[in-house]
């Protein structure tokens, strides 16, 4: 035993007492007064700080009222009302405290069950002094595991915060520029970001080596179910068992849910803390895209403990992309990155508006995307355009329903808009402009190829977009943004919600917007935050970002929004872009993209030269001018719609 002091601090729970293990604050719960007295005495003899409680409900209220006042909970199994296992789950999920169980029941199966439920240790009565003395060891272990988790999360967030390769990478033109692992490591080396107060070591290796056990990959859909289940049950009563029942996914175990739920709660708690403190979380967790300190764009726990899900936010915003190796067997990394990809729609039906879980940890890119994202070398395999940069520029992107995705999504790119009132949160349109690489087959006729092409062209707009986000588009200043109503002040449902970043996609969908379950008719969003307790997005005022096209003076958003009037819109009608078309060098349909892009380009850069292909990178998509003037895109690799390549020189 020794003074572990701050070294065992974990950002998730209160730091252990500096005199650890002495002074360990332990809450003992047992309905047996004799045992309670004995154990209390034993603990006190070990110089722990003991609080006793004879009823689990009392224990819970004590824990809730005095958060951070306890380091560990020791609880009996068989108690009236709430048994020890349930208490264990609740404590683990809500307060993330280590729980030691005890029981007169000496069945191994019960003990096993306890451990599986997440108990740190299971003591069999009678409790001996020796066992009590060593309780601290189990606490340490739990803290260690928590720290590992924290580091994991932090590393993912780091990756999410990665700006474009141009910013930091030493190897600009190399395929590894997008390698998130190396990026993270390199970034870490350059500037130490103790994202959540945990010292992060060599992230690169660490992230990849954090393969502790086979994980369930929480893809968007799964997480969506998860979140809906929680919504149904109520966050307070959300226990893995019930969630499992509701989700009803074969192969999913209660443990999977428990750990996911735990992380989710942690995430929510952090957000709540952020809200309450009024501070902005470090970039790691804050979505600069519309995160207002008081109004996060994520699900939060309101004081009543209800989980409020913000309306999905669909800014023209950022395309959170992180290049990561899809082949990377570290699913958590994968997931975290992906979670920043709001558009990631697990199924190709763009009917699913809530593309990503946003929660962040376990989202996996849908497999149908994977091949697209491969761009040759495995290290750069999945290039998902990364979002942001400190200059506040914002690329295109969809913000996922849950905030956390947003947080690292658009870490430093905040639209400058400041919303006077609660901004509307837009639904993530699955088929959005941002869905580059999204294989939204159904309604989104822009295939990945098409998107890629678009994207590539958009890249050219990124002159002042220092994120070098592939979209290169920058959100305009507040006024403009406001005007564009990409992110609207929270009104009673601007009907334009659906539009948001679905520029091309909307158009290409020929006006058919995939139905959003939560949208009213005509894309009107039920945005009354009060009704649903949803948190509107407030976009922070940030540096200049602009969206060229949409700030065009003659831009008539209403007109634009009304998709029936699309034809009136100068951008024209994109029509259906077939993959073959693009690959094969274009057809008439590609003209539409062209014109759109040109519009955008022109409004951004004036009638500048055509988008110049980047000659150096073999990874780049190359636009060549054909004889007939139509631009075709050729690539010498499988086009990766998210691939930013090196064309984006913006800084």
């Amino acid at each position, binding site marked *: 035993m020794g003074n572990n002091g701050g070294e065992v601090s974990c950002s998730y729970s209160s730091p252990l007492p500096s005199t650890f293990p002495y002074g360990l604050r332990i809450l003992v719960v047992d*309905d*047996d*007064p*004799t*045992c309670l*007295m*004995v*154990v209390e*005495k*034993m603990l006190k*003899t070990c110089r722990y700080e003991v609080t006793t409680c004879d009823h689990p409900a009392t224990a819970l209220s004590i824990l809730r009222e005095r958060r951070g006042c306890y380091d560990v909970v020791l609880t*009996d199994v*068989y108690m009236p009302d709430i048994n020890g296992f349930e208490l264990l789950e609740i404590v683990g999920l809500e307060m993330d405290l280590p729980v030691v169980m005890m*029981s*007169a*029941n000496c069945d191994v199966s019960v003990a096993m069950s306890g451990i599986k439920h997440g108990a740190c240790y299971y003591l069999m*009565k*009678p*409790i*001996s*002094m020796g066992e009590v003395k060593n309780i601290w060891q189990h606490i340490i272990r739990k803290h260690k595991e928590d720290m590992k988790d924290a580091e994991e999360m932090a590393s993912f967030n780091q990756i999410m915060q990665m700006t474009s390769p141009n910013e930091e990478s030493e190897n600009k033109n190399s395929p590894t520029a997008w390698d998130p692992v190396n990026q993270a490591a390199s970034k870490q080396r350059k500037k130490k970001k103790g994202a959540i107060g945990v010292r992060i070591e060599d992230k690169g290796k660490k992230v990849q080596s954090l393969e502790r056990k086979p994980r369930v990959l929480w893809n968007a859909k799964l997480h969506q179910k998860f979140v809906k289940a929680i919504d149904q049950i109520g966050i307070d009563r959300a226990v893995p068992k019930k969630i499992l029942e509701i989700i009803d996914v074969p192969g999913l175990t209660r443990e999977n849910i428990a750990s996911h739920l735990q992380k989710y709660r942690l995430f929510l708690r952090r957000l709540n803390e952020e809200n309450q403190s009024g501070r902005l979380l470090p970039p790691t967790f804050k979505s600069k895209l519309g995160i207002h300190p008081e109004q996060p764009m994520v699900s939060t726990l309101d004081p009543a403990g209800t989980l409020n899900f913000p309306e999905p936010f669909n800014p023209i915003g950022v395309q959170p992309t992180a290049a990561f190796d899809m082949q990377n067997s570290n699913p958590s990394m994968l997931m975290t990155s992906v979670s920043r990809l709001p558009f990631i729609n697990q199924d190709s039906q763009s009917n699913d508006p809530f593309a990503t879980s946003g929660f962040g940890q376990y989202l996996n890119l849908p497999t149908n995307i994977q091949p697209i994202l491969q761009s040759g070398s495995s290290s750069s395999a999945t290039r998902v355009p990364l979002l942001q940069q400190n200059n506040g520029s914002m690329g295109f992107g969809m913000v996922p329903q849950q905030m956390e995705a947003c947080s690292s999504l658009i870490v430093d790119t905040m639209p400058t808009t400041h919303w006077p009132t609660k901004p509307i949160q837009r639904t993530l349109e699955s088929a959005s402009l941002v869905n580059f690489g999204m294989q939204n087959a159904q309604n989104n006729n822009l295939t990945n190829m098409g998107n890629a092409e678009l994207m590539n062209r958009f890249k050219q707009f990124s002159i002042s977009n220092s994120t070098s986000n592939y979209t290169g588009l920058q959100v305009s200043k507040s006024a403009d943004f406001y005007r564009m109503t990409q992110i609207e002040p929270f009104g009673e449902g601007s009907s334009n919600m659906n539009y948001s970043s679905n520029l091309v996609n909307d158009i290409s969908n020929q006006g058919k917007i995939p139905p959003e379950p939560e949208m009213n008719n005509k894309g009107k969003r039920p945005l009354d935050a009060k009704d649903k307790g949803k948190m509107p997005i407030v976009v922070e005022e940030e540096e200049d970002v602009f969206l060229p096209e949409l700030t065009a003076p003659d831009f008539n958003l209403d007109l634009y929004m009304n998709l029936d009037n699309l034809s009136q819109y100068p951008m024209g009608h994109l029509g259906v872009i077939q993959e073959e078309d693009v690959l094969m060098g274009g057809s008439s349909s590609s003209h539409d993209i062209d014109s759109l892009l040109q519009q955008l380009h022109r409004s951004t850069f004036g009638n500048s030269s055509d988008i110049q292909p980047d000659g150096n990178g073999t990874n780049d998509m190359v636009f060549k001018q054909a004889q007939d003037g139509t631009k075709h895109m050729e690539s010498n690799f499988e086009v990766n719609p998210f691939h930013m390549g090196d064309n984006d020189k913006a800084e």
Partner: protein
Amino acid sequence: MEVGQLQARLIDLTSSLYSEGFLDEQFTQLQQLQDESNPDFVFEVASLFFDDSEKLLNNLGMALDEQVIDFKKVDANVHQLKGSSSSVGAQRVRNACIAFRNLCEEKDREGCLACLQQVKHEFSLVKSKLESLLDLEQQILAAGGLIPMME
């Protein structure tokens, strides 16, 4: 009676309690927990145990008196009794409770009733013996002596 004699009696009593299985090692731990800051610890725990157990035994009696026995409730009570008796080191009571639980599982009404009697019997035995022991200790202390601890 002088201290020496009291102490001798105490040692005899304690040894027999252990050897006859009335008390086990847990009780020793309780005694070791007693210190200057809490000189009556063993006495307090024992008193608590007695009171709590009597309550539980009453509950058990009532539960088994029912027309339709709620064996779950009976089992819960027995479980609790088992826990508290094991916490103080009342070994024979604890063992009786284990047997009692098995009978509950089998929903053996007659068996349960018989076992309840057994538990009650063991309980009253250990209670009186513990009371004697604690009383002896008080006497020794009052006479200015020290309580000999069991190894």
